[in-house]
Structure formats: structure tokens, C-alpha cells
């Protein structure tokens, strides 16, 4: 399985993401710069990591979502290639219109950087098959704008379709997200966005490896 990590000015979690994909997938991902108009052939998983692209100017992810590379990513997603956006990557996917809803300023107005508990709400996706439905994972979060919002019609639709993949487990919602939503997938099931950072909990040096399952699922390297 070949993966790619997108790089943009201000994204700073790319190195962590490259490390996670390399350690779990067995080979390093290719990197794709924002001005590129094509994703290398044979890539099965495109990851937009976290950070503060374009200084969070205008709205988080708004400027990045209009860069040329996003057209290339959209074309690949339409063709069925898996796309994962983490934190700022999630915000970028929403701003690009590739996922439903929006992320607003945290209800507390504070930047939150801590570990939360994540409930796997849908284990039947290409990103969560290594987990069981209802499983509670440890996972770090670090963001200022992770307060998920969708209008009533959209919310009913994504809840009905099982598009909510991760929720903050009871009592750990760090940002005021509606329905405790931490991660959503598109209708087709190949584009996932999530606020928590699974790439930061993949080995004992991190103090745990609950995030491994997500990459093992997406990279198709689940141990028998």
C-alpha cells in the first residue's frame, strides 16, 4: 500500500504523520507539495496532517483548501482513493467541501491540548476495521477550533448513514462538538476527517499504541 502526505505552509504535524505511516506501513510515504496538480500514480492513501496552514487566516483550513493540490486530491477521492485528514487536515477537508459540516472555535474559547477518550462509533469503515464498535481508545487532541457543527438536516443524515466514525467518550468532549462528534466520513466511505491525533499514540515511547489500529486499517496491514 502506497501512501502520500500533503505538505503546506504552516502544517507542522507532517513529520509525526510520516513517522506513523513509515513505522506501521513498512515504507515511507511520498510527500506532495501544495502546488502540485497531480498525486503520484499508485497512491492508495492520501493524508493531510495537522498544523496551522496559512496561520489559520480567514478560517482554519480555508486558504489551504483552495490550493491546487486539493483539486488533485478531490479527483483521487472521486476515483475511490482513501483520504485522511487529521486536525487541521480535517478542517481543510471540510473547507474543501469534501466532508459535511464545519468546525468552529472551541466552546471554552481555549486551545485544548490533552488526552481524551475516543469511542469507535463505526468500525465498518476502511479506517476503523481493526477496532470494534463501541471500543474506547486513548487519543491526544491539540486544537483551538474543533467544535463540530452541522445543520439539523445534515446531522440527521450523517447520523442515519453511520458517517459519524468517532465520538468523544462520555465526559471527555473537549470542545463542545455537537453529538460529541470527533470524526466523520463521507457518504462513499473513503474520506475521513478527525480532530484527535492517532499518529501521536502508536508506540510505547508515546505511552500507548491505541492509534495504530487506524493506520493498520487504512494501510491494510492488520495483523492476523
Amino acid at each position, binding site marked *: 500500500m502506497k501512501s502520500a502526505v500533503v505538505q503546506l505552509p504552516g502544517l507542522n504535524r507532517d513529520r509525526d504523520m510520516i513517522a506513523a505511516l513509515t513505522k506501521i506501513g513498512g515504507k515511507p510515504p511520498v510527500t506532495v507539495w501544495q502546488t502540485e496538480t497531480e498525486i503520484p500514480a499508485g497512491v492508495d492513501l492520501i493524508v493531510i496532517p495537522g498544523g496551522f496552514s496559512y496561520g489559520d487566516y480567514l478560517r482554519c483550513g480555508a486558504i489551504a483548501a483552495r490550493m491546487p493540490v486539493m483539486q488533485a486530491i478531490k479527483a483521487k477521492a472521486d476515483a475511490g482513493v482513501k483520504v485522511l485528514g487529521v486536525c487541521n487536515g480535517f478542517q481543510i477537508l471540510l473547507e474543501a467541501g469534501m466532508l459535511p*459540516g464545519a468546525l468552529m472555535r472551541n*466552546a471554552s474559547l481555549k486551545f485544548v491540548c490533552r488526552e481524551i477518550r475516543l469511542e469507535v462509533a463505526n468500525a465498518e469503515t476502511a479506517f476503523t476495521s481493526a477496532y470494534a464498535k463501541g471500543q474506547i481508545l486513548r487519543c491526544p487532541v491539540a486544537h483551538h477550533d474543533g467544535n463540530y457543527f452541522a*445543520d439539523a438536516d445534515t446531522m440527521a443524515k450523517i447520523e442515519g448513514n453511520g458517517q459519524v466514525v468517532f465520538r468523544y467518550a462520555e465526559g471527555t468532549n473537549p470542545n463542545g462538538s455537537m453529538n460529541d462528534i470527533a470524526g466523520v466520513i463521507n457518504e462513499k466511505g473513503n474520506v475521513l476527517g478527525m480532530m484527535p491525533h492517532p499518529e501521536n499514540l502508536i508506540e510505547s515511547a508515546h505511552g500507548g499504541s491505541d492509534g495504530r489500529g487506524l493506520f493498520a486499517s487504512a494501510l491494510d496491514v492488520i495483523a492476523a
Partner: protein
Amino acid sequence: MDAFEEEHMIKARVTVTLKNGVLDPQGKAIEGALGSLGFDGVGHVRQGKVFDLELQTADKAKAEAELKDMCEKLLANTVIENYTIALA
């Protein structure tokens, strides 16, 4: 800028506000701060954004259409925000 350019330029102001029903934590914090300054009876504070732009055209209809396109494509996130366009 010479007189010719000024004549062929339109100034515009785009105002972007949150839609009704969208929670505005910043507006709420500002409302609280106004209260603590002694401004009583202030409610429903909503924070928005203002963009001032200059367009090199004399055609108002074209300018307005272009500004609408800019709002839809970048200046506003229409999932959560409304926008209004005013030409000077």
C-alpha cells in the same frame, strides 16, 4: 491613482456573519465582557467579519456578480455563515 483609474474602480464592503442557530462562543464571551464593564441589557452579541475590497471595473452588475462568487468560493463558509455585499 489617477482620475481615470478612480472612475473605473468600485469599492465594496462584504460583511460575513454567523447564521442564526450557529453557536458563537466568541460573541458570548464578548457579551459577558460587556456585562462586566457595566453595560446592562446587552444581548445576542454575534461576532462577524468585514472585508473592504477595490475592484478595477466600472460595471456595477459585473462587480456584484464577481463579489457574490468570491463570497461563495472563499470569503464565507456558507455552511455556517451568511454574507452581504454593499457597493460604495
